[in-house]
């Protein structure tokens, strides 16, 4: 009798321990990665320099060169606005995906409140059945563990499935975003610098300026170039952060069968730290 009792309790204890182990979804590192990625993608959108700004800067310099003043809007930036729309479309889509991944990996998502069930199951005599308080407590504990284990296992499978399906399109989108930032937007700044150089070089050759005005022009040129350099550094940093986020997602995809292993968690943390360091550097440039 006692052997049977022991075996039964041993089985229940093992089952509970197993369930508790399984229920520890340990998706905190994925949640953290998705959270950082969502936030940083938002900051790329609000970077403070975009194609429209490049158009306005260029328009201003052209007008200054030709002493051209017109009533109303002087700058036609339609093409540049379209470029911004494409960039933002990619950024927003990627950001929304990260937001979904963040919510799906959040631990609180499956922390259900079982209290209403426990409150409903009161101790007492129900026909032939007697329910004691400790049984009510035990049932609600088991229900909580079972529910957490089942939903967390479901969640893990879903995250694995979504990471697998998202990786190829995400890599494509992130690489194109990096291309836009690195090759196009950063090069707009190279054009800006060259235009400033051309404008002030022409001014320097002018015989109509006094020495003081020429000195002032050199000061204005250096200020303009310095601002442009900082904007370019910010853009290149954003590009680097985007590349790191993409690389981290690719690592998740490659390690999708061992998402909860310690080695993978450390690897992902390294990527997150890199992204945070890069974005801190961007912040410093803003100040």
């Amino acid at each position, binding site marked *: 009798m006692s052997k049977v009792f022991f075996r039964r309790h041993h089985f229940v204890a093992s089952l509970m321990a197993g369930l508790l182990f399984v229920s520890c979804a340990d998706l905190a590192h994925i949640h953290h990665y998705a959270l950082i990625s969502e936030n940083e993608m938002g900051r790329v959108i609000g970077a403070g320099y975009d*194609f429209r700004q*490049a*158009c306005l800067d*260029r328009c201003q310099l*052209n007008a200054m060169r030709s002493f051209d003043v017109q009533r109303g809007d002087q700058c036609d930036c339609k*093409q540049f606005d*379209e*470029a911004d729309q*494409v*960039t933002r*479309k*990619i950024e927003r*889509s*990627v950001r*929304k*995906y990260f937001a*979904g*991944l963040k*919510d*799906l990996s959040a631990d609180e*998502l*499956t922390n*259900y*409140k079982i209290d*209403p*069930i426990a*409150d*409903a*199951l*009161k101790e007492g005599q*129900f026909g032939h059945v007697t329910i004691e308080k400790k049984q009510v407590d035990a049932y609600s504990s088991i229900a909580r563990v079972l*529910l957490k284990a089942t*939903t967390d296992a479901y*969640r893990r499978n*879903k995250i694995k499935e*979504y990471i697998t*399906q*998202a990786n*190829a*399109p*995400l890599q*494509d*989108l992130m690489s*194109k975003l990096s*291309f*836009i930032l690195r*090759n*196009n*937007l950063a*090069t*707009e700044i*190279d*054009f800006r610098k*060259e*235009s400033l*150089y*051309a404008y002030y*070089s*022409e001014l320097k*050759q002018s015989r109509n300026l006094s020495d003081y005005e020429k000195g002032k022009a050199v000061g204005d040129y250096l200020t303009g170039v310095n601002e442009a350099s900082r904007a370019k550094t910010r853009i290149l940093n954003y590009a680097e952060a985007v590349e790191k986020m993409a690389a981290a997602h690719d690592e998740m995809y490659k390690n999708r069968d061992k998402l909860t292993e310690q080695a993978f968690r450390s690897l992902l943390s390294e990527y997150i730290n890199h992204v945070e360091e890069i974005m801190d550097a961007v912040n410093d440039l803003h100040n």
Partner: protein
Amino acid sequence: MPKLNAAQASELARHFLSLAQSIGDYRYRNWKKLAKKDNQQLGDFQWSVLNCGEDMLANSTTLVMDDVKNSLAKIEDLTVKVESTLAGLSKIQTIINCAAAIVILGGAVMSKNPNSIAGAIEALEEAVS
């Protein structure tokens, strides 16, 4: 004539930048030798090349859309699936609340107390809504 792709347009823009730099360098080196009219013409050409290069970069970015249409559609479709899974997991709390309300209603029916039954029905309605 085949259309330029995003990478080619971007590459071309960088050539425009080099060209504008070369024209500029020539002008500044020979400023005193060049006739005013020639210098002005060269200058206007230099600025046109700079403007064209910037337009080309914006154009290259717009062309990226042709390359990413499929990937955008896939990631947006996937995001909808993620949101649907999230909604499903969030519904579980509602189901728990409903189950609890049903248990309470069952107890109230067994007690044959009209006040308890009415209260339990109200609680169930609240849990379902």
